């Protein structure tokens, strides 16, 4: 369903004052999402934003569509119920790394496994923002936080690696500040029928500032990020002189031109290859961080199949009324 008149980004802003900290990465993401909604000609009346709890999860209050700010960690489950009731609705899920990977990890995992037709935005700032800065399941080892004053010791999760393990069919990564890239990415995720997970690298300026600067800073991003395009060789670097190659089943970075490596040696991105995707999602510096659509391999969505199946039931069962149903099987007359 599309809106009659084309709407602009601004039309997707609510009258509510945005209350994130000045300089929070969430502002940029909000801008990108509003632009995306305008770009894809989303119908505000047919669009629903569902979120859990957290700074990220305040999102729905700022988007002029239907919005449901639910409880911590349960947004994917609530959204699944919405799609079961009405698969026609365009449902977006928004939450932070704590919301979706800590308390809500299981719901995210099962939404991905079932392949519910949701566009899921995971704002990963590697910290609990709203509760004032405790470490999260994505925080690096050694993160000092109020709950880990001497530094965290447990190994972090990779959101996208976990998603691949759960059988996700669309997996992508974006960065809050990349306003050029992000809207396209979000549009792609939205276009994917079924569960689409986008991890958005988001800077929490108050509690985890610069957690990502080692690959997002202007000076390093060229060498530290690999922007993926399906079918194209996986080349990166300011001078576009570095690329990925497969070596005994492992990815390695090679320099084009150096010891006989030519562009033709560079592996082309295949967004439908799960093995490749599993390797790409886990790349961390010194390897380049993969940005863009890492995996896109659609399958029928759960909600669509459920409704098709229900329709089959209705068709097959020669329609009877409840009164008739109650009178089926052994009965006896008392006069």
């Amino acid at each position, binding site marked *: 369903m599309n809106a009659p008149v084309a709407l602009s980004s601004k039309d997707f802003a609510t009258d509510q004052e945005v209350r994130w900290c000045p300089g929070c990465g969430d502002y940029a993401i909000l801008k990108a999402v509003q632009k995306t909604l305008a770009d894809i000609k989303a119908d505000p009346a047919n669009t629903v934003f569902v979120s859990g709890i957290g700074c990220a999860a305040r999102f729905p209050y700022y988007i002029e569509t239907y919005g449901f700010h639910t409880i911590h960690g349960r947004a994917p489950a609530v959204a699944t119920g919405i799609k079961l009731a009405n698969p026609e*609705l365009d449902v977006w899920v928004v939450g932070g790394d704590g919301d979706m990977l800590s308390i809500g990890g299981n719901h995210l995992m099962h939404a991905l496994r079932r392949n519910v037709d949701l566009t899921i935005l995971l704002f990963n700032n590697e910290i609990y923002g709203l509760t004032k800065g405790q470490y999260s399941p994505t925080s690096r080892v050694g993160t000092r936080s109020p709950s880990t004053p001497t530094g965290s010791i447990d190994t972090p999760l990779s959101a996208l690696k976990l998603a691949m393990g759960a059988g996700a069919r669309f997996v992508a990564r974006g960065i809050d500040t990349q306003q050029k890239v992000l809207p396209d990415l979000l549009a792609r995720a939205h276009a994917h029928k079924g569960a689409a997970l986008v991890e958005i690298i988001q800077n929490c300026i108050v509690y985890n500032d610069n957690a990502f600067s080692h690959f997002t800073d202007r000076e390093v991003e060229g060498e530290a990020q690999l922007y993926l395009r399906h079918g194209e060789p996986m080349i990166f670097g300011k001078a576009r002189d570095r690329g990925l190659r497969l070596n005994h089943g492992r990815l390695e970075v090679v320099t084009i031109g150096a010891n006989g490596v030519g562009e033709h040696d560079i592996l082309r991105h295949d967004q439908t290859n799960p093995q490749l995707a599993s390797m790409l999602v886990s790349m961390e510096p010194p390897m380049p961080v993969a940005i863009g659509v890492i995996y896109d391999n659609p399958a029928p969505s759960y909600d669509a199949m459920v409704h098709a199946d229900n329709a089959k039931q209705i068709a097959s069962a020669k329609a009877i009324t409840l009164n008739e149903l109650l009178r089926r099987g052994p009965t006896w007359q008392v006069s």
Partner: protein
Amino acid sequence: MAVMEQTETAPHISEPARQSLESAVVRFAGDSGDGMQVTGAQFTLATAISRNDLATFPDFPAEIRAPVGTTFGVSAFQINFGARPIRTIGDAPDVLVALNPAALKVNLTDLPNGAVVILDSGSFGDRNLKKAGFAVDPREDGSLDAFRVIDLDISKRVKEALADTGLSSREQLRCKNFYALGFVYWMFDRPRQPTADWLLAKFKDKPVIASANIKALNAGHALAETAEYGPLPAFNIDAAPMAPGLYRTITGHEALAFGLVDGAQKAGLDMVFCSYPITPASALLHNLARLRSFGVTTFQAEDEIAAASAAIGAAYAGSLGITSSSGPGIALKTEAIGLAIAVELPLVVINSQRAGPSTGMPTKTEQSDLYQAVYGRNADAPLVVLAASSPSNCFEMAREAVRLAVQHMTPVMLLTDGFLANASEPWLIPDVDAAPAFPAKFRTDPVDFMPYRRDRHGVRPWVKPGTPDLMHRIGGIERDQLTGNISYDPDNHQTITEARFAKIAAVADDIPLQDVEQGSSSGRLAIVGWGSTYGPISRAVTTQRDLGVDVSHIHLRHIWPLPRNLGELLRGFEKVLVPEMNKGQLTTVLRSEYLVPAEGLSKVTGKPFAVSEIEAAIDRLLDD
């Protein structure tokens, strides 16, 4: 057994003198594999067709498939039937059919003196005796002296009877239950035809099996008829007075499923039923999964929290969101239910109570989740609580739960229990079209729309996402009493908290005043019950009133809010007794609401009250 006067019928060859009974209790017991549930169901059908009123209860073993011959592998089925209205499954069996020693062992303690015990002596070998934990054969050490034992070697006889069927002796033994059934049919003069028909239908692809079972049925019947055992007990139970109409038997969980479908249809909504399996609630999920052609979507979620959350999502999207579980699972849904209360969406929550705390005894019944239903949430979070009183009443209460949820935009918790879930009774099948519809209203008019502006009943509008020009945001953070946007304003919180209470309180205007089931509306003693204690209380009060005792029965189906007239009603009695299968939970509510000195009668054995236990309490309270 309740005896009526002896009727003198002239004895002739096949018709013995039958003792007329007002009612009788028969229990079929055997190994999980012995088909006792089928046997019971067939006896129930034959009894219903004989126009007796009845109540039945299956007693499955706790284990899925316990080893053969063990006590914990015993499966039983009890039926209480009579010429009078039947309200309980009967305190104790008058007739026990025990197809192996274990079945005798576990039921021995329940047997009253003079009970008839039908045994398959063929199964009383040493191995089985040992498995059942009998040191010596109970038939020899006098431990059965108090009973009237009919020691048939069913195993041998059924094999003889089926010798020429070409079935293996293992297959022949599978027909034991129908042999025993035929024998009991004769004792109670039940028709065999319906069972024969059922067997033919059931095994239409296996005619050999069908006819073998029918053969066994007839052989068992013939054995009794020819009475080679000498005079056998034979009974006659007249038809019970029952309202005219078409009847069927129904269990609580069947009735629940039908009632929810009826409610959804009357509200004009599709149903999204979200659940996670748990005993004894699962049956509802299973029943509804077979009714998807009635606009029902069933969703087996990853856990109870997801189930409740998905049901809330469905309600938000404009469907009838329902979630169902048992105590421990309901506990997990608590936070999500709080969200539904806060955002004010309709939600039906069904709690099939079981014995606890924690995992407790999943297959045993209890009524101990009333605190959880009425008080068991963080913060000031009122909702509507209902309780079904009998298997068939589950139908009305399920529909009532849907009505109140949709009309008042609130979660409604319906309490049932493991007994109601599995017990069955005859049901005068209603014409569902006769009951009034209560169509849900969805707001579509954008003019002056405010998501939390209330109508005069304190109810906010329900809006389907997808409706043009009504886009808005709701959430669990405290919200402005009109716009629904986040508000931390102190007065707003006070106002909206009170509005949430007022809305639930106003439900009392939309439910019937409390009536008195039996007895006068004031007097010396009121027995106040709720849920599945209905049967025993009702029977006990009838008996006592017949003896001239001044006692009344009040039964609550609306637990929160309570009916407007209840306080006044209770104050009209000198004493108030509240029998509950818990440690006194409704008692607490009544005492705090009305300051009446209500006294609890508590039973927590995982079994329903016996009528005698309630009568004893009445005696105790009134003899002074």
